[in-house]
């Protein structure tokens, strides 16, 4: 038998801690972070408005990144932090 190296190597992972789950969505402020792809805004805002209607909440902020290939910048994140309790994102092509 012979040994060769595994090519994957170790994982260097940032530790992210999830926010505590909300006990209730009653009156929740919902934000949308779109990626500028076709139908992204329509899909995400449609879902947000449906949830808001169901729980007595509100769609309070809608932001679209300039392009899908860029991360949300600090200004966008700060606005979402200030104006929303939960954020919907994640639409692709």
């Amino acid at each position, binding site marked *: *038998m*012979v*040994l*060769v*190296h*595994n*090519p*994957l*190597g*170790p*994982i*260097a*992972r*940032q*530790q*992210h*801690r*999830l*926010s*505590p789950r909300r006990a209730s969505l009653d009156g929740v402020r919902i*934000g949308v972070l779109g990626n*500028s*792809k*076709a139908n992204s805004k329509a899909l995400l805002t449609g879902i947000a408005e449906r949830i808001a209607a169901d729980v007595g909440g509100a769609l309070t902020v809608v932001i679209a990144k*300039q*392009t*899908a*290939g*860029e*991360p949300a910048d600090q200004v966008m*994140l700060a606005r*979402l*932090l200030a104006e*929303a*309790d*939960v*954020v919907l994102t994640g639409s692709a*092509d």
Partner: protein
Amino acid sequence: MTAVETSEPVEEDPAGMLELVDLEPETLMDAFEGRGWGDGLPLVPPTPERVEAMLAVVGGDPDEVLGVLPPRRGAVTRRTVAINAVLAGCPPRVMPVVLAAARILGGPSFNLEAVNPTTHPVAPLVIVHGEAVDRLGFNAGAGAFGPGNRANATVGRAVRLLLLHTSGARPGEGDRSTQGQPSKYTYCVAENLPASPWGGYAASRGVDTPSAITVAPVENPHNAHDQEDDSPEKVLDKLASNIASLGSNHCCILGNEIFVAMCPEHAASIAGRKWTRADVAGYLQQRARITAAQLIAAFDQRSWPRWMRGLRGDDLVPLIAQPDDLRLVVVGGPGKHSSVLPCFGTAPCSVTLPLDI
């Protein structure tokens, strides 16, 4: 909403060794194929002896975390880079180039988070500049984009294997490219500095060191052929036409770099008429344009800056937002074929750094 907390990268899941019955090529190929590893081509077994020989060239702590490769968030370490360089068939002398490329890919200035999972056919191109070209045996002349030169071929392949393995950029998984592209096997070229009438590319970007490296996420080279005469306009108009294609990502995402790999004969013709590097970039920025009417008719979805939303139908939209986004590198040997290499995403896309060999 509550902000998440982050910390510096930490190591987890240290790589183990793989036990094989022998070092026959088929044995290694089968072992890798069974695990979803490799690029489909024969590999050099990464034995401890070969990996140590690769590491000896660069020195330093083999397990120091030098960067992070998304989406797997694999750690860029000298050891992991060396393992993939061995697999690719790199001679140890080129290890500093592979390591420098890996540090760029895993660093904060390179948008690998988007380059890997996009459906766009983009591959990181490694461009080697300066003394390293001759000293390490890279080909900047005839057929520089390949095939046939070991340094070019294996450095590009080592980068790709690192992305496949450490970054997790497997087709259909971490790499969502619709069709892929041949340069996703290997993509490395050298700048033909002796044939450049405008000096070196790296120096033009403020990196004035004996050797340097650029990593640029680009499409395959798009050929532009001109054998007419010594007119700069005739050569550059063909390149401009190539850039101003309705199929280009630049039509709906303005504000990105475009590389032109100019052959020495085109460069000599243009420079012979006293055109500078800036003249070339300025001319192409003026000429590579499409009417707003054509773009609006072709694309419902446009990630344009706000100022472009007021354009009228006959206004000409530049596919190069500003002359500085046109990146000119002299590459190749005899003949009159240059090429355009559009970047992915938005500027800044490429990174140029000093290379210590």
